[in-house]
């Protein structure tokens, strides 16, 4: 039989019949098979723990990213209030990148949540089958002659073997997806390590590599429109030159710098 049903059933059945042939004593086969099932269940549990850990890590990153967005927005307002439009633009560009990252993190967390639920469902199904197999094997061992037992064992082993193969497949798919996300998460971490989301007040003069990359990454039109909106909110025209930050991100540093700037500065 071609197709998945053919291939997959054949693989599973071949493995099972090999296992059955190897053992001379049916009860030995049963115990071996049961042992394998328990091992697989342990692996599923480990897999779930792995997914949960990845999810928690991403949730922490999400929180950090949210804080960064608030901070960069505040800094853009401060910069604009102080009349430094270039700096405000850089802050908004970074905010733009951070927002894109945040969206992607959110969907990854949701995907992992989904994986976790699927694997937990697999675990429950496998547990039920193992329990069923366990009681079946006791019955087989107690009630059947060796020849009869072979047939019964073969039936039970096929059912549970297929489930094992399926749980293995489900777990592999879930873990593959988790791996993709881990790679993505560490890419975000690298961006962070490179200072992409650092405090702007720590920026030196001139434009560095990150700035150039950011300019490419972030949508200029989005930044432009946000900048325009921010300007409108701050009230046009009267922003004085001055004092953003050398080393201070304290909103009070712009205090007294002019009319119309104070209430929005914080």
């Amino acid at each position, binding site marked *: 039989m071609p*197709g998945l049903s053919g291939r997959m*059933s054949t693989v599973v059945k071949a493995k099972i019949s090999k296992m059955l042939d190897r053992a001379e004593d049916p009860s030995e086969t049963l115990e071996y098979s049961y042992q394998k099932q328990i091992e697989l269940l342990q692996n599923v549990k480990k897999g779930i723990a792995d997914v949960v850990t990845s999810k928690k890590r991403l949730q922490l990153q999400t929180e950090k990213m949210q804080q960064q967005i608030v901070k960069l927005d505040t800094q853009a307002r401060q910069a604009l209030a102080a009349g430094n439009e270039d700096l405000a633009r850089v802050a908004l560009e970074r905010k733009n990148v951070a927002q894109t990252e945040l969206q992607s993190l959110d969907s990854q967390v949701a995907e992992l949540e989904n994986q976790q639920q699927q694997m937990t469902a697999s675990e429950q199904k496998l547990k039920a*089958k193992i329990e069923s197999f366990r009681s079946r094997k006791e019955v087989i061992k107690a009630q059947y002659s060796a020849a009869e037992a072979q047939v019964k064992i073969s039936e039970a082993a096929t059912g549970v073997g297929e489930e094992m193969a399926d749980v293995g497949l489900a777990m592999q798919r879930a873990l593959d997806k988790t791996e993709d996300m881990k790679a993505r998460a560490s890419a975000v971490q690298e961006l962070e390590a490179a200072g992409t989301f650092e405090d702007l007040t720590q920026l030196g003069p001139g434009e560095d590599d990150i700035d150039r990359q950011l300019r490419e990454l972030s949508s200029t039109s989005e930044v432009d429109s946000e900048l325009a909106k921010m300007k409108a909110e701050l009230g046009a025209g009267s922003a004085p030159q001055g004092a953003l930050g050398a080393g201070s991100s304290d909103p009070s540093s712009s205090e007294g710098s002019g009319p119309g700037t104070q209430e929005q500065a914080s």
Partner: protein
Amino acid sequence: MIVRISTEGQYELSDADAETLNELDNDAVLACESGDPTAFHATFSQMLELVRTHGRRLDEDALSGSDIILPPPDVSLEEARQEFQGEGLIPG
């Protein structure tokens, strides 16, 4: 006939429904051969839907082997192409 949807579970399907599944299976093979993801996913969704709505879900502690194993619901066309070929999942 017992049908498994990979990564989901086993269902018992009547012969008439199995026949309908076979027809969809043939369509899925054609869609895979022509490399048309939209047609494939549409057909494959119908197969899943048929099994889920017409099939009777087996108890979780059932220990029966399946006659047909469908790929996981999130299968990609590339993965499916290796499965849906020749006579498809169901010969005939």
